């Protein structure tokens, strides 16, 4: 995927893909997550703030508020390192994809019960990010450079 050590069009396309994936995981945190019920008018960042304030301490522990910030934070790191091909970056992408999948599954189960009609913009973006992320991981394994 490089030409004499220089990034090729494919390399840049994959990097742009990782930037997009990171952006999706970040943006899902600032838009309503579901179409109805909890987080249909609020975002996971709003929920995080409410949980961290302790106002719903009996419903969700404070650390859950910090956990909700994990996915957007991971997304930002992915964006920042999208055009890096360092070995550490590659490893981080694998971990990020696994973490994002876990968070998306947990949130989707808790908030929508996996009913597609209850998916809001946040859920759709998070899952789109998961699809692009895992596709990019697969591409990096299957393409000749790897």
């Amino acid at each position: 995927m490089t030409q004499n050590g220089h990034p090729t069009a494919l390399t840049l396309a994959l990097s742009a893909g990782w930037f997009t994936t990171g952006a999706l995981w970040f943006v899902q945190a600032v838009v309503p997550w579901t179409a109805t019920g909890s987080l249909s008018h609020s975002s996971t960042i709003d929920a995080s703030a409410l949980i961290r304030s302790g106002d719903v301490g009996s419903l969700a522990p404070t650390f859950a508020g910090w956990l909700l910030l994990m996915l957007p934070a991971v997304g930002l790191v992915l964006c920042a390192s999208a055009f890096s091909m360092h070995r550490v970056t590659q490893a981080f992408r694998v971990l990020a994809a696994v973490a994002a999948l876990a968070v998306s599954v947990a949130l989707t189960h808790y908030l929508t019960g996996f009913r597609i009609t209850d998916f809001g913009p946040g859920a759709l973006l998070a899952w789109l990010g998961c699809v692009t992320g895992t596709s990019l991981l697969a591409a990096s394994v299957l393409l000749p450079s790897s």
Partner: protein
Amino acid sequence: MPYCSHCGAASATPDQRFCQACGKPLDAAAAASAAPAAPTAPEEIDYQYLGAPTAPTDQPGGGGRRLAKVLGATAVVAALAGGAFLAYTVFFDRAGAGTPEDAVTQMLQAVADQDGVEALRMLNPGETEGFDDVYDSLQKKVADAGLASDADGKVLEAVSIKLTDLKVDVSERGENAARVYIKDGTLAVTVDEDKLPETYRNLYDEMDSDARDQLRSIDISEVLQDGFGSDDKVFLTTIKQDGRWFVSPIATAGEYILESEELDPLTAADFDKVSEENAPKPRTSKDPQGALAVLVEAISTDSVENIFAALPADEVAALRPFTDVLQDQLDGTNGTDLQVSDLDTDFKDLGDDRGRLTIKHGKLSGTIDGEEGYATLDGTCVESSDSPQDEGDSGTTNDCIPDEVKDQTGIDSIWVILHQADGGWQVDPRATVIEYATRAIDNFDLDAFKDSFSQGFSDGFEEGSSYYEGGIEIDPDTYPGSSPSARAGG
């Protein structure tokens, strides 16, 4: 082959002085050098894929590297901007809304869509803190009793409510408060019978089809006209805290009370007092055991300001606008002078600057509105009289919490919740109410209630006995054939 250090394009000849692609002068050293080799030293951001190179593409290598650097730098800047935004939301929570009407509409929409997070964010935080305990207990109890749609206790999962075309009107109450009237809108309630717990399904089956149709489209303006004769009767009061607008249940209740007393809220309530700048200095006790005495002492000053100062500031913030009208009410009495004595208490630290003060024994004496009174608390019994000489005599009344109430609620002692403020302790009425409510809900036997409720419904109503419909008592003697059983039987 030499490459341009500006755009990365390959030069046609080694002695070429200007780049044919970008026209910039070719650096002698750079131009003389060979094509860029794979980096030998690790870079902070390495733009090279590891592994064997693939077949060359049409893209010039140097140009791609330059483009990648530009894109990489752009990505880092974008990520930093996103990080700044994330940090801002973490450290500066923007609960509430920018305008009073937004606070009300967003809260009502959230309630209709069952988004508790958004609804809570639109409510004044000082008035809602701790109610999650009550909600949590209630949810668990309902789920345990099989009255919920699922194991998580989501009672309303089977019910879908849509609020559309909501129209509100704002009436300002100074800089820090506004009354928001609900004017119009459409409420549509649909029920998924399959998701309804069995208990509710029976009730829903009993509903006639007209009632179900009505639920599907409720015109709010019609309801307001029918129920209140006007569309300027239903409102929510919002208050401004730290530059954001919140719905205030206490201020709303206060304004309704003023209206019912035929007092003009515009003159009776001073919403500029909502601002914390005007908050009085807290009156506290150094030790938890003295907190009750501090509150009683504040009450005895007959000053609303002093009473508010003896209570948690965030709880009384929404009451402050009504200070003058409350003071007028207090001034109209013959005064209060109370003392607490012989206190025997037990204090338990609950963490988070809270504690429970259990009152095992204590005496309260003095005058309320000029009337002398004496009360002695012993365990869960209160002995009261209007003179100290009556103690133990026939003029003394003795009231205890009945054993069945203790069993049903688990409340087997009298306590107050204290809260730490300004280095001392204060009685926290909201936390106290929440603690009693939570304990009562946790211990309440909902299964027995549910069984008797279901039994009562399935048995119908005895012929000739009154029953309630829409909150109105219906007497079958007056309206023959109107009872549910009569209708069911044709």
